[in-house]
């Protein structure tokens, strides 16, 4: 499913497949991922072995889902810092409410979705309607969600139910269920975003809210819904974590905030809002996960692992934020003068 550069084109002359220009973010992240896999094959074959992939792909899937949620918010020019709270709340609801009893799992999952919608609506109202700064509003919501986490769990982990462990942590045809779930969400998000009127309007509003307002689109509603759907993504991710890790802590979402932004940036999404690249986000999640596995397999110290991940983010921002053509031209023009 290639991305096209023509932003809101819905009709036009048919193009041959080789004529469709690929998005810069897609090309970059796919190229980087292929290069990383080659590096793994050469220097750390164990990082791409079946067992290692089976062990690590569920976490890539979780990151991909969280990243897709964050992407929706970034597309509207915002940032959602309530990722840790949203994910952690879903984790504790999915483990504490059923308390090992499969029969209570469905109720817990529905309650988790209810909480996610409530949190998303509040975020959306504060940012979309009352025009609060997204960072301030969502960081406040994050604190509120952690209040919920403590109220439910007191910070104490609880063992997950067998049913959830099977649904989220099991495998079919050797592939983790969480990977299937992430791919299903990817297909759904891509379809809605690229093939429905609602999705096209969503991107148009993100690209230029003033113009969208002028043509009569309900800007505030769309901006609010970005936060609601983002929370639903975090909720799914949290429920998956609750199944993948047998006894998740109450703070399982904490480690996902920075990577969630990183995958959105690496996928080429403009931080000013506009187009989103769901496929690229998912590939970026795989890329970041594989980068960690590579670093672990090579045996570099933990400090170096952190630096490698941070560098990947900086490089990602550098590739998309700097206009390399202009910069190269300027440098080329300046050199003769210096001589």
């Amino acid at each position, binding site marked *: 499913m290639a991305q096209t550069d023509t932003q809101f084109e819905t009709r036009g002359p048919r193009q041959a497949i080789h004529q469709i220009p690929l998005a810069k973010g897609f090309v970059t992240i796919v190229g980087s991922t292929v290069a990383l896999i080659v590096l793994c094959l050469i220097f*750390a074959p*164990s*990082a791409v*072995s*079946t*067992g*290692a992939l*089976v*062990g*690590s792909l569920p*976490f890539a899937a979780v990151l991909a889902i969280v990243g897709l949620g964050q992407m929706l918010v970034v597309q509207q020019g915002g940032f959602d810092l309530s990722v840790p709270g949203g994910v952690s709340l879903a984790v504790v609801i999915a483990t504490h409410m059923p*308390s090992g009893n499969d029969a209570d799992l469905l109720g817990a999952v529905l309650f988790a979705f209810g909480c996610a919608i409530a949190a998303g609506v509040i975020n959306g109202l504060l940012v979309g309607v009352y025009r609060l700064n997204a960072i301030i509003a969502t960081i406040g919501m994050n604190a509120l969600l952690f209040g919920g986490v*403590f109220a439910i769990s*007191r*910070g*104490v*982990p*609880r*063992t997950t139910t067998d049913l959830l462990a099977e649904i989220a942590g099991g495998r079919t045809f050797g592939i983790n269920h969480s990977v299937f779930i992430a791919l299903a969400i990817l297909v759904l998000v891509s379809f809605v975003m690229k093939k429905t009127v609602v999705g096209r309007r969503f991107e148009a509003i993100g690209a230029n809210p003033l113009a969208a307002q002028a043509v009569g689109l309900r800007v505030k509603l769309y901006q609010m819904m970005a936060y609601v759907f983002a929370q639903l993504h975090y909720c799914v991710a949290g429920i998956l*974590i609750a199944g*993948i*890790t*047998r*006894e*998740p*802590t*109450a*703070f*399982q979402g904490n*480690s996902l905030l920075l990577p969630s932004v990183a995958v959105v940036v690496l996928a080429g999404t403009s931080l000013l809002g506009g187009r989103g690249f769901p496929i690229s986000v998912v590939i970026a999640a795989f890329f970041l996960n594989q980068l*960690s*596995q590579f670093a*672990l*397999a090579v*045996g*570099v*110290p*933990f*400090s170096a692992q952190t630096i490698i991940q941070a560098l990947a983010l900086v490089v990602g921002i550098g590739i998309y934020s700097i206009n390399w053509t202009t910069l190269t031209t300027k440098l080329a023009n300046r050199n003769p003068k210096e001589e």
Partner: protein
Amino acid sequence: MTQSTCRTAVAVAAAGLSMALLGSTASAQDTPAWCGPNEASLALLDGFGGNSWRIVTAEAGRQEAELCPSITEYLYADGQGDTQKAISDINSMAARGIDALVVFGDAGPAVLPALTNAYRAGAIVIPYRVVVGGEAGRNYTRYVAASFVENGVLWGEWIVEQFPDGANILFLSGPAGNSQGLEELEGMMQVLDDSYVFLNPEPFAVTNWDPALTQQVLSAAIAQHEDIDVIVSDFGPSLVGALPVFENFDRSIPALATSDGNSLGCFWQENRANNSDFDLMTVETGTDNVRLAVQWAIAEATGGTPPESDVFTSGVFENSITDQPNAVQCEPDLPGAIYLSSAVPAQVQADAVGN
């Protein structure tokens, strides 16, 4: 009042008096030596109280303080992982005139100025388990340490017993550079010679004691090393989510030297049959470390006799091979997040953690 009623009332009063006298005699006999005659107030200050280990620890601290009738007031404050709040809690307790402060200084030397101020204001200040810098007698009354080196020695000795000809060891600890992991490694190195090889990057594989990260680290390590003989971890329950990863590689879970936890014990009992190499040895997880710190604080504040040592030492708790001192323990009907090595009864722990 009739005569018979009067007699009954006198009898009841006499019985009550004798009970009270018996009670006071008993409590006088039970009063520990570290509990002196001077009345004092005591506060337990946690840098972070939001997990089951800390909840059980706080309960242990409360129980220990209850043993001393001279303690008139017992307070608890949770820093919630926020250094500023932890500092503020210490200052606040000192300002309220609390006589003795027992402090789990998660933030390390960052809380030292607040501890020093409280100490100089006349409070008995006992930091424990986490090194906060400074020195006893100048910045605080006394530091009550945990002997993590001893834990390392115990693990090392068990590994030597199981693998006398050498072994490949994977050592997992918490955040990068944490002093606990470094001390445990020091202890193991005292026992293990060159035939024991550490497969992890020096000094230990970083897991942040997070089950998700532990799972990822373990996946990478298993894929990389075909011959892991023994895993050493300083927080056993965080491994419960990660150990099933071995199944992905069609390999048995190897021998495990770690600290105890109910979820780990139950996991071992459920999975031992299908994992031929899965032997388990645990040391006590140390939720009773706080008792020694409370004893010191009360002794100093009430004029009691201080304990002999200021270092808390964990012993071996479970050994699946010898069943000495205990076979692997599991309370399937109680929550996984309790610690059967703790002197706090299991059911009390379960109630405390709210399960």
